[in-house]
């Protein structure tokens, strides 16, 4: 009992320090922080319309979290980078620069709980990396905690694989946004809306 209590206390302490168990277990630093920042900007412009600004998935799949980067799926960094750099964005595959693809990959790693390091990710490294792409908890430890709805598991979702921090339960993504009457008004008053009733 005492051992278990100590472990619990330790894990609470580690969580308070923003250290995820997965990272403690060795999620490697594969990219530089500036790359992830640049990647976010590219992502928002080129990818978010399908995958969601918070990577939560819209018409395209979610790109973060225990369901995306699961042990079962068994993705490596290489798998995702090769697909990303050859076939995304779907409306214009291969249209980004190598640097942009690498930055988006860095952003995806960051959002899946990989830590930033001192060495920048290169296209060559990403295309050959056999590091397992697993969800290591919410992105941005050390005071940048980015707790949003996409950092959570839907009710009933299985916890991520053993040794990982269980995600918190979701709040509805669009809580409060579903007031239909309000949205009708918003749509109606959209400035410059083409072809209104004549």
């Amino acid at each position, binding site marked *: 009992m005492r051992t278990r209590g100590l472990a619990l206390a330790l894990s609470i302490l580690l969580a308070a320090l923003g250290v995820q168990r997965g990272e403690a277990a060795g999620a490697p630093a594969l990219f530089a922080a500036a790359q992830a920042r640049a990647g976010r900007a590219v992502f928002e412009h080129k990818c978010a319309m399908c995958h969601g600004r918070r990577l939560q998935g*819209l018409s395209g799949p979610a790109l973060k979290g225990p369901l995306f980067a699961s042990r079962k799926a068994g993705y490596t960094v290489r798998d995702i980078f090769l697909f990303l750099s050859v076939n995304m964005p779907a409306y214009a595959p291969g249209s980004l620069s190598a640097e942009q693809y690498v930055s988006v990959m860095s952003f995806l790693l960051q959002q899946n709980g990989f830590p930033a390091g001192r060495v920048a990710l290169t296209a060559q490294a990403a295309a050959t990396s056999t590091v397992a792409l697993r969800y290591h908890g919410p992105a941005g430890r050390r005071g940048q905690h980015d707790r949003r709805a996409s950092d959570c598991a839907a009710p009933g979702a299985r916890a991520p694989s053993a040794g990982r921090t269980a995600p918190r339960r979701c709040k509805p993504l669009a809580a409060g946004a579903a007031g239909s009457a309000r949205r009708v008004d918003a749509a109606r008053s959209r400035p410059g809306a083409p072809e209104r009733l004549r």
Partner: protein
Amino acid sequence: MTIIHVFSRRRLWPLALLAATLAPAAALAAGYPQVTGARLAAAATDNGWLMFRRDYAGNSYAPFRQIDTANVKDLRLVWSYRSHLKEGYEGTPIVNGDYMFITTPKDHVIALNAVTGKVLWKYEKSLAGVALKTVCCDVVNRGVALYGNDVYLATLDNYVVALNAETGRVVWQRQIKPADVGYAMTLAPMTLKGMVIVGESGGEYGARDFIVALDARTGRELWRRYTIPAPGHLGGNTWPKGMYKHGGGSAWITGTYDPSTNTLFWGVGNPGPWLAKLRPGKNLFTDSLLALHPRSGKIKWYYQYTPHDSWDYDGVNTPVITNLRYHGRQYRAVVEANRNGWFYAIDRLNGKLIYAVRFTRATSVAGFRNGKPYTDNALRPTLTKQVFTCPSFLGGKNWWPISVDPLTHMAYVPTIHTCMTMKGAPTFYKAGLPYLGETFKVVHDPDDRNWGALQAINLDTGGQAWDHESALPWDAGAMSTAGGVVFSGSARGHLYAFDARTGRVLWRSPQLSSGIIAPPSTYIVDGKQYVAILAGWGGGTPIWGGQMVESVSNIPRGGHLYVFALP
């Protein structure tokens, strides 16, 4: 009149209340009208809208005359229902008696009173634990099927779910494949002879797809027809060794059924990976029409629309059963406006081609010899060669179903005018990841600055009868009625009513809250005809549309069911 008047909830309230009060007590007491095999066989003349394309023949033609060419301009909104989900709405409202069933993205089913819009129940398939990683073209659902007292749904995580039509309670559910490993379902199931029949998607993810029939009462599997044959089976020698295991061949659009020949027709999608160089051979039965024995799933015959496809030309466009007269000879035909840009008429007794005509610019499939298509091999991409060809992989038409009107003897065809650049690219198979092997970009047809059209094709000649051009793509299904009116919706969010003979626009709804990618349906309750349509932009175009994406990027999102009737 302004849109505010039309869509104000306050204005609708009294109307809805009045309708609810006036709803005949007898009809309510009678409860849910059972959907028998006999009713499904006669669905074409039913007052409801009992299945995906209204009847087994897939005509999407209603013999209703109340709304006609003279009065359609007087259509008014009767009620509407808004959903909170923002992805694409591709479902057809299904109606039995005064029960309506609609589906939303992510596999929700909502039962409503078809006269008042009152919500009777809601069912939400739990997708917890599902990553939706192998759904190519938006997390859509195309509607339900009915049989007995049940409502059937096919889901993104590969369940077939039977719900009680009156309560929404799950009667049974059965998962036919695991989720997220290449397979998903978006189609409306078909109920036939006590079976519920569905087909799997996954042509972009290295699936080996299939059509499966389950016992409608229990969910027990009765037969499974793989669309990609294993070695030793018919067509198995059209694949390089081992490649059939990830050969695609999705069956993602509901089939049709011909009682006169007892044949189930089902379209099959593209081969995987997309780059044909990687899989020498005809790659049966991809991009084909399958004629099946409905009791066993055995193949009677097949017709391959695009051999050895390298352009993602799915042959899953609804095959419509109709009769036609061509060069003085009468045929029992099955017709289809194919993804590859050709309109096919095929003899449904033996699978022989009657005719094929281009309905949009089509260069990859260059022509026909002895009733079989041949391709322009110069337009096949390789790892080092980029090609420019038409139509784009989104097709001359995508899944949006045509309608066939037996009075005008025309097919009404939603059309897109696109071409594309395409080049080979490295790929590898891994469960849960796309398996393409090509890069591409959808661009304008050099001779047509419009992205879309709704056009009418004369079934007896294959010639164009009329054409309504659209600057934006035309991504919605068509419906025709005996009142001489063709209905379909635009990307800008207007439900259109066309004169079936001339294509003249007779009426256009006020702009709805989003663009339309769904087919309409129509039904009669207590002697009054209604027209229902789901607005809710999304689907494949905004994801894969290349140059088209910009033109549709400002279309507002969100789902909204609208029901119209005459005052």
